[in-house]
């Protein structure tokens, strides 16, 4: 490595450039690693626990029922399709206490996903998570188009009857930003590699393999069967 080269200035430039590049790489990588770590002191929305992968839980007190884990991203079009296919059934089994359902709102598609996930958690505090979920996917804006803003999410809440100032400030201040990160970290640990990913009792339901074979995801009867294990 050591050099006998007489060109001192070339050496200096070289070392300076290498030093700067190494600095950029190190700072970037370390910052990324730290900001992706789970923050155990994050404030959590109601009905959320670390044990359930930081998801929003319905019927968490039930035992002996199927556990449905839904990993999704509010901006993912296929998630909207899943929601439209199965939301009526999911609402029914939640209402009739036939299953424990956990929604994990990932945010890998972009900042608007994180904004939406945060707002969904704010809505959960008002007991309006399912309504928010349905309304958002019912009119899902194009991915990262800039359509999802604080105003958009506040007025979406208002259309569901959420008028509290608490909701507004929760959305505007990203109160659950750390929680959104924790959900993402939990998805990484659990090897969730696409959205939607739906698990029943910890096992993924059957994926669609083609346009004609819808798997368990996009056929309501097959989904109900997968949940009920019949």
């Amino acid at each position: 490595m050591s050099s006998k080269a007489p060109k001192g200035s070339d050496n200096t430039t070289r070392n300076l450039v290498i030093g700067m590049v190494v600095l950029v790489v190190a700072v970037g990588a370390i910052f990324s690693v730290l900001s992706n770590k789970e923050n155990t002191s994050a404030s959590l929305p109601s009905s959320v626990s670390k044990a359930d992968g930081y998801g929003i839980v319905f019927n968490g007190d039930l035992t002996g029922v199927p556990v449905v884990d839904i990993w999704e991203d509010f901006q993912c079009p296929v998630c909207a399709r899943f929601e439209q296919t199965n939301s009526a059934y999911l609402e029914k089994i939640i209402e009739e206490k036939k299953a424990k359902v956990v929604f994990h709102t990932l945010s890998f598609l972009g900042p608007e996903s994180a904004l939406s996930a945060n707002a969904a958690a704010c809505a959960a505090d008002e007991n309006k998570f399912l309504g928010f979920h349905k309304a958002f996917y019912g009119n899902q804006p194009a991915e990262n188009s800039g359509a999802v803003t604080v105003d958009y999410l506040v007025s979406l809440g208002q259309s569901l009857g959420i008028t509290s100032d608490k909701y507004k400030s929760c959305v505007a201040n990203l109160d659950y930003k750390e929680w959104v990160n924790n959900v993402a970290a939990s998805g990484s640990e659990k090897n969730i590699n696409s959205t939607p990913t739906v698990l029943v009792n910890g096992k993924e339901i059957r994926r669609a393999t083609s346009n004609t074979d819808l798997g368990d995801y996009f056929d309501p009867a097959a989904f109900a069967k997968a949940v009920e294990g019949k």
Partner: protein
Amino acid sequence: MKKAQPWVGLLARLILGGVLLVAGYLKAFTPDKSMMAVRAYDVLPIWLANILGIILPWLEIGAGLLLIIGVAVRYAAIFGAALMVVFIIAISQAWARGLSIDCGCFGGGGTIDPSKTRYLEEILRDTGLAVLGFYLLRYPVTKFAVEKNKSHELVQGE
């Protein structure tokens, strides 16, 4: 040919460096997605895949910068070429095992619809980039490189 070589080398530096820089930049700020892309290859243990998903984009940025600026070209070139060889192996095994994934080379990644996989194109592109890397390893002296001093390189230049 001898006259063209430094210019070919410059082109190789800019293409390989540019691709690495852009690929790294597109992934560095969406670490969740990048981690997902590495996990989807289903080769590494999850924790290692996640760490690699975060760090690899930054290493690509670093190697890309060195190549474009023209400093420590041989080190950056061998890193880039080796990376491409690893990618080719990873994509090939995914293809052979019938996984349906996006390579996640420029952002994106993860499990995708089987009809959307593009393994052959991805392998051909990475092969081309690896060739550029090996070319620079053999002929590291190029036009408009900040570093003119060859003595630092892995092996004394021609």
